[in-house]
């Protein structure tokens, strides 16, 4: 905290992009507050029962001699449980099998401040709204401090140093206990994998030493900097992989409680519609009752099939007096109108600016891009199992925040939050969808009508798509004035889009009152550019037509990186410069700005790949093209190269190469897997993804109308990791932002056509 007390206005912009020490290197007043709060509760110890020894908040030694590592994050495919096991095993010098992961208790100790701090919309330019924004944000942080959460590609960044520290401290405590027992100096003890050996051949296992070791005061030991070790930097097999391969892994939908009933749910077909009434026309076998919610009806039965059949037969009357009549075209018309109104539109936020864009001179190049609403479409549809009595509640469900589940389930069950138990199995996908807990609240409401009986509520795929919180649709006007070399003398970026954060806070924490704020996520990927754009204005026009929007893998980066990187490609083409060379020039212009240096390193590797692997000609005369995109998201830098072919008017992505700098890859094979995953997720969006609205109704209903990328259409993806040793960046979402622009730019290279709307549609050729 050497810079503690620095004013908010002096915050260096790179502290947000680099995130030194994860939370901004101590330059944030807010980080100080968070650290203080965490420090005050740092004496927390994992509860231990008979025969177990707790070694603080993260580790304990179980009765069976295995070490348990507490994980406050949910595993939704990113492998955080396996990573926690790997780090604990490394620090304790144990084989992987000697460590198991367990969900951490719901305690403020396990909060995720990284996720919150990453979302701060600071910039050094906008002093006016800055203070107001800061007050608003810190108010939120203090209110939600203690909130566990999995999202924003933060789980590794949030817990890896804490687990490494805990493991090295526990090892030291065990060594000191062995030293005392054998009266041999600790440095003469040899660790032989779960036991200490004295020079004269006496041994004591961790289990034998634990009761004594657990009573010692931990020393203040810091783990060495991340470097290649037994598992770190190499990777290790994930313990969850066999479970998932053999179908033994349990998800929320697999919850089975004695006497459990099943509920099938149907929501109002129109946004904002309410349930008027619902009746079961006749007795239906197995049906136990109907629950009338505010905007849904649920059929409760002894089997899910009976619940579904019952729902089909129910007579449901909806009250559409409050229903929305919004259609997709209205949304884009509103965006267009807002952008056309320009500086007079409110609310308009200049989130990042420098120089005077009005007075800049040069030839103007302008383009408008847009992107549609998207559904998350996790493979495991929304579901939750709840058990409610007059005094307590239990919830079994996949989710992205145990603390929020506890808060919201308590409210829905009308019991105190410390009377809510939350059981979290594996998640059949999260992607941000399970940060919004409407499906859990409804399951608790439904179970509340069957007090004392567990009820599992499962959404059909149609309900899952119909009642999502969507990746917002957006429209961006981008313009630049270019000098004689074709480089921008000004850059103006204006995006019309609703605010995800604002809607999320209103849904999750309605009591956390706050005014309008600049939502950083709306412009993530456009602000604080790593390119040298000394004269710029990055602006958000908040336009919200009431369509629910939420966090969708990579959030704002999925929009802004696409728009920006396509536009940069347009500037390169206008300057008749190779897209890689053009980007190199723009990076060089940023000087010694650290993000520019890291981006340039990634770009160099892209150029090397490009040179070594020329674009193959299209098969059977198909047009072929190669496109490039360079992005920074979640404190990591990613460049992607996409090779496409146009086969009889169909766009095929053949190959993708990604270059990744996430600081240091703790588990390289999993970094590769996650980046591939992010790319394929982004490809679904680039090629097919769109959720349209028609008179307030959601158009797509299943994978026939909301297609996902298939095995046949998935390209071969290679991933190259550049370890720069910078502070850890995120991994889970970073593959997504660059793929749509890389493919769109490849289409331009192949056809000369600029596709400025997503999904990419070739039209008649």
């Amino acid at each position, binding site marked *: 905290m050497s810079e503690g007390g620095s004013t908010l206005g002096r915050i260096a912009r790179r502290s947000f992009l680099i995130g030194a020490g994860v939370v901004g290197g101590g330059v944030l007043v807010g980080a100080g507050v968070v650290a203080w709060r965490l420090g005050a509760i740092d004496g927390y110890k994992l509860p231990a029962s008979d025969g177990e020894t707790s070694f603080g908040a993260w580790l304990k030694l179980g009765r069976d001699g295995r070490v348990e590592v507490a994980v406050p994050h949910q595993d939704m*495919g990113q492998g955080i449980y396996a990573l926690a096991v790997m780090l604990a095993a490394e620090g304790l010098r144990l084989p992987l099998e000697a460590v198991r992961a367990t969900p951490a208790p719901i305690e403020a100790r396990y909060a995720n401040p990284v996720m919150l701090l990453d979302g701060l919309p600071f910039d050094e330019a906008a002093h006016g709204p800055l203070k107001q924004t800061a007050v608003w944000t810190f108010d939120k942080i203090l209110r939600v401090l203690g909130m566990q959460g999995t999202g924003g590609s933060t789980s590794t960044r949030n817990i890896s140093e804490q687990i490494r520290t805990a493991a090295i401290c526990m090892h030291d405590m065990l060594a000191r206990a062995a030293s005392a027992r054998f009266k041999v100096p600790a440095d003469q003890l040899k660790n032989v994998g779960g036991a200490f050996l004295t020079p004269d051949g006496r041994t004591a296992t961790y289990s034998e030493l634990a009761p004594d070791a657990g009573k010692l005061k931990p020393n203040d030991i810091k783990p060495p900097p991340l470097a290649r070790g037994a598992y770190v930097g190499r990777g290790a097999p994930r313990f969850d992989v066999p*479970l998932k*391969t053999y179908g033994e*892994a349990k998800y929320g939908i697999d919850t089975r409680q004695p006497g459990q009933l099943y509920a099938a749910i149907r929501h109002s077909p129109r946004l904002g519609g309410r349930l008027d009434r619902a009746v079961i026309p006749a007795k239906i076998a197995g049906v136990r009752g109907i629950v009338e919610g505010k905007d849904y009806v649920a059929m409760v039965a002894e089997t899910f099939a009976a619940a579904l059949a019952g729902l089909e037969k129910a007579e449901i009357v909806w009250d559409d007096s409050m229903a929305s009549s919004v259609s997709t075209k209205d949304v884009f018309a509103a965006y267009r109108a807002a952008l056309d109104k320009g500086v007079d539109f409110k609310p308009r936020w200049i989130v990042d600016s420098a120089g005077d864009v009005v007075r800049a001179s040069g030839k103007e190049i302008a383009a408008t891009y847009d992107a549609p609403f998207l559904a998350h479409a996790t*493979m*495991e549809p929304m579901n939750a199992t709840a058990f409610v009595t007059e005094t307590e509640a239990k919830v079994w469900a996949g989710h992205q925040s145990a603390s929020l589940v506890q808060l919201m389930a308590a409210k829905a069950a009308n019991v105190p939050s410390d009377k809510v138990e939350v059981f979290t199995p594996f998640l059949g996908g999260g992607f941000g969808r399970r940060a919004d807990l409407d499906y859990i609240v409804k399951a608790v409401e439904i179970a509340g009508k069957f007090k004392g009986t567990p009820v599992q509520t499962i959404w059909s795929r149609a309900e899952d798509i119909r009642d999502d919180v969507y990746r917002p649709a957006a429209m961006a006007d981008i313009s630049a004035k270019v000098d004689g070399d074709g480089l921008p003398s000004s850059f103006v970026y204006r995006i019309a889009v609703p605010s995800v954060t604002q809607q999320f806070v209103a849904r999750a924490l309605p009591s956390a009152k706050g005014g309008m704020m600049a939502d950083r996520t709306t412009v993530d990927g456009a602000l604080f550019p790593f390119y040298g754009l000394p004269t710029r204005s990055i602006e958000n026009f908040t336009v919200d037509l009431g369509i629910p929007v939420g966090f969708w893998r990579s959030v704002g980066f999925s929009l802004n990186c696409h728009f920006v990187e396509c536009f940069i490609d347009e500037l390169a083409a206008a300057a008749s410069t190779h897209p890689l060379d053009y980007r190199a020039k723009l990076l060089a212009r940023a000087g010694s700005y650290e993000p520019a240096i890291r981006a340039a390193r990634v770009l160099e590797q892209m150029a090397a790949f490009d040179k070594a692997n020329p674009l193959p000609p299209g098969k059977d005369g198909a047009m072929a093209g190669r496109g490039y995109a360079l992005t920074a998201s979640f404190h990591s830098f990613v460049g992607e190269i996409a090779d496409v072919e146009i086969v009889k008017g169909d766009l095929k992505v053949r190959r993708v190469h990604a270059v990744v700098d996430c600081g240091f890859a703790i588990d390289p094979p999993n970094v590769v*897997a996650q980046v*591939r995953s992010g790319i394929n997720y982004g490809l679904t969006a680039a090629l097919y993804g769109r959720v349209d609205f028609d008179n307030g109704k959601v158009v797509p209903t*299943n994978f026939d109308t909301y297609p996902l990328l298939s095995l046949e259409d*998935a390209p071969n993806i290679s991933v190259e990791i550049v370890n720069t040793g910078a502070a850890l960046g995120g991994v889970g979402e970073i593959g997504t932002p660059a793929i749509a622009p890389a493919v769109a730019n490849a289409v331009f290279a192949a056809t000369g056509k600029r596709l400025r709307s997503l999904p990419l549609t070739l039209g008649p050729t």
Partner: protein
Amino acid sequence: MSVEFILNGRRASLQAPPDSPLLWALRDEKDLVGVKFGCGAGLCGACTVIIDGQQVRSCVTPVIDVAGKSVTTIEGLNGEVAKAVTEAWIRAQAPQCGYCQPGFVLAATSVIATDPKQTSEQVFSQITNLCRCGTYDAIRLAVGYALSSLQGAESQEKGAAR
């Protein structure tokens, strides 16, 4: 009325209405929760089971259709091909969230079992399951591992027989 069939190698019966989906009967009546619900319309393959050797989407298969047939779920999968496929899946570290993976494993096992001498491409073209985590590169790798282990094992056996 109950439907009689062979489930994971043993005689079994289902009490569920004959026109109701096999998926829910297996999950709720037989507690075979490795059979996953993804779309309810035969589009994603999360609910894949093997019926008389063929990959089938249980969410659009009425219970009555399995009368007298042999149904294999992930819980009952065994045999040489299944062993090769599951071991290959683990070697390739294919699953991420893992929800769709039992369906993929069953689909791959059923396709490979029909002819272990197929090429990888031939196998890929018969797998239309969907994975939202996009584990397709790893799945292709796993299929390759499974084929080479089966084909290698077979040529070794031939060698030994000679």
